[in-house]
């Protein structure tokens, strides 16, 4: 069939053809890329918009970006914001289908919500295709538990872990190994001073090291008060995070195995009573503490131990901002009883692709690059947290970072918080109750009874929770 074009129409057609030729190479190349491996620069000219939390990890990623642009020709605009703002911006972008962001780093507790609402793109087809995920990428090296918790919802993968913080115990190694302190501890508690293995020991150590200005600590006269423990007790997500360690330790939590609410169970009440008791040895103002203030308390050298986030260790070990750099030790979170299971609250983020994005392929390439062995190694060297076993086991990094070994072992046994769509609301309910108990506004028992009541209202019609 021949197409006849009128003479007067020729200039229009020629212009259209010219525009098509100038504008389309990337599309043509993109089409071709499906046939070839994504090796050359099939997406050159594509610009991805990314949003993530304002953290060292995201800062480092930004620094490494030119490498990705050089490899693929893809430009990435990185936007950083605090936790709340990232979530709000993502949800508003998803719900309005504006696709302002192609790829996001999201807190994994929102995975259920994003996946159930169809906001994010499953990546199984990319993962299972050797064209998109060559064997050299080595998926098996990504810590399996971490990847499942961060990015897998009901059997489908939605992305890769973007941050891998996990909670563990920090303690002052220099004080724990001081002969005079060891002797005094033995005399008082009749067992040797060592990193706590049980919560009772944790409490004893906190009590032992709580001292007034003018008293002796490790052979020196204290010029300020010193406290046994730092704890996050503000009405904040940080308090929710620390709580789950104590609750799990005692066999409690938010849901039982059947998915029913157990906030006011005997185990939880015992755990909260323990935690409230521990605050006797915390610095004044502990009810305004989040993970930032816990880090700061260590940096100032005023506390002996804490259960906090592993990714804050780099700040505590930084001599330019910490008085205790090189004097810290790291261990598992103490157990409720010697025979109990080890617990560690996992708090990661995940890279995901916006379902409305027009650049899904390029977005996947970006995620794959960020998780590649080489980038993970660079990320770790610059102070970020990787998601690959090989990076955690790297000898040079282990020699450089004293907390590295503990990070990996805690990640391997870690437990995620519920990833259900009601997460924000149940966290709010718990934060209020915990804050009231920790500020001595309500007894642990009353506070948890009220949490249970509030959460029953929040979860109305969604119980039992069969998948989280």
């Amino acid at each position, binding site marked *: 069939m021949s197409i006849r074009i009128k003479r007067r129409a020729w200039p229009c057609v020629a212009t259209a053809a010219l525009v098509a030729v100038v504008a389309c190479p990337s599309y043509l190349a993109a089409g071709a890329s499906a046939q070839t491996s994504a090796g050359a620069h099939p997406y050159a000219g594509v610009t991805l918009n990314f949003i993530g939390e304002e953290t060292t990890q995201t800062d480092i990623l930004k620094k490494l970006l030119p490498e990705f642009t050089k490899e693929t020709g893809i430009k990435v605009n990185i936007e950083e914001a605090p936790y709340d703002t990232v979530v709000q911006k993502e949800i508003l972008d998803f719900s309005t289908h504006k696709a302002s962001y192609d790829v996001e780093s999201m807190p994994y507790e929102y995975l259920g*919500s*994003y996946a159930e609402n169809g906001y994010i793109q499953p990546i199984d087809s990319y993962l299972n295709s050797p064209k998109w995920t060559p064997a050299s990428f080595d998926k098996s090296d990504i810590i399996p538990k971490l990847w499942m918790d961060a990015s897998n919802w009901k059997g489908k993968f939605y992305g890769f872990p973007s941050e891998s913080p996990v909670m563990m115990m920090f303690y002052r190694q220099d004080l724990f190994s001081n002969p005079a302190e060891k002797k005094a501890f033995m005399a008082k508690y009749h067992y040797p001073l060592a990193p706590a293995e049980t919560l009772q020991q944790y409490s004893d150590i906190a009590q032992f090291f709580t001292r007034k200005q003018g008293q002796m600590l490790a052979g020196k006269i204290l010029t300020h008060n010193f406290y046994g423990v730092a704890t996050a007790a503000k009405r904040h997500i940080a308090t929710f995070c620390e709580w789950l360690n104590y609750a799990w330790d005692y066999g409690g939590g938010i849901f039982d195995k059947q998915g029913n609410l157990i906030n006011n169970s005997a185990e939880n009440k015992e755990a909260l009573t323990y935690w409230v008791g521990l605050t006797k040895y915390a610095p004044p103002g502990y009810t*305004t503490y989040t993970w930032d203030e816990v880090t700061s308390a260590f940096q100032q050298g005023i506390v002996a131990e804490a259960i906090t986030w592993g990714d804050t260790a780099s700040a505590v070990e930084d001599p330019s901002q910490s008085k205790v750099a090189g004097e810290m030790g790291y261990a598992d979170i103490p157990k409720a009883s010697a025979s109990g299971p080890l617990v560690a609250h996992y708090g990661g983020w995940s890279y995901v692709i916006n379902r409305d994005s027009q650049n899904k392929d390029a977005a996947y390439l970006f995620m794959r690059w960020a998780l590649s062995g080489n980038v993970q190694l660079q990320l770790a060297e610059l102070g970020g947290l990787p998601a690959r076993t090989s990076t955690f086991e790297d000898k040079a990094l282990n020699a450089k970072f004293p907390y590295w070994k503990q990070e990996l072992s805690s990640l391997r046994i870690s437990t995620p918080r519920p990833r259900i*769509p009601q997460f924000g609301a149940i*966290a709010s309910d718990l934060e209020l109750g915990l804050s*009231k108990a920790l500020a001595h*506004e309500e007894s642990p028992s009353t506070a948890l009874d009220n949490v249970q009541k509030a959460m029953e209202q929040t979860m109305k019609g969604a119980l039992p929770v069969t998948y989280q």
Partner: protein
Amino acid sequence: MEVAGNSAAGLADMTRRRYGVRRPRRETLAGIGFHVPMIVVLLAITVFPLIYSLKLSFESYSLVQTGMNGQGVGLANYSRLIHDPEFWNAMKLTLIFVFVGVSVELCLGLVIALLLQSIEGGRRIFVTLLMIPAVMTPLVIGLMYNFVFNAQFGLFTYIIQRLHLPLPQGLLGSKTWAFPTLIFTDIWEWTPFMALILLAGLQALPEEPFEAAQIDGATGWRTLRYVTLPMLKPILVVAVLFRAVDALKEFDKVYILTNGGPGSATDVIDLFTYRMSFVNWDMSYGSAVGMVLFCITLALAFVFVKVTTRTSTG
């Protein structure tokens, strides 16, 4: 009638009405043309969100929770609100915040305004300095006081320790002291603003009544009580209402300093609404709370308009 009759425009207007003379068509169209953009913008940014929010408050809608797709629930959100102790706690705290904060700001503002009124030299410098807290972003004030009240190295903590004051080391972490501390930060921020409004009011007062009071031998206090304050009353009312509406919407400083805690000791209504809408993602319940707050603000605005109208016509 005499007000309109005194100006040429008023006369033209009266003539048109009396003799049925109509405005030229082009003038009318131009008038409409100038008003339309403003009306459209107002509709888009105030009326539409308000109506949409009202609609949402009768529905069950969430951007993250599945099963909350905007189905109608009648008055369920309002019923929940009535039975929600946290809502009533937030309302109570907000009203205390407004009443105590604005009262102290008014008294201190008046004292500062009278002092400034009485000095001749350097008033401009003081007025400029007074502007500083009022022009600072509330968020920055929150961050600044976060350091000031820090339990370990804050300036306030240092002062408490040096003077051996019977106050806890971490004021913001104390269930007793956190709320008064927040009110203090608000007073620090807004007293200068109050002083400036009242100073402007004082400077606009006529001199004759003061001269008459002086001739009659009135003391300073009696002049203040029976001359200054009665004449300043409309300005005082406007200043109080203006601040009260603003204080009802307190958010930034509380969000930064305490996030509503410890427990619910500082959970003011705007923070409560924010949490419902953008943390719990229950947009409908958040809208219902927002509508209640809107009604309170509307009532205050009504009083405000009444007072200002009476002032301008009286």
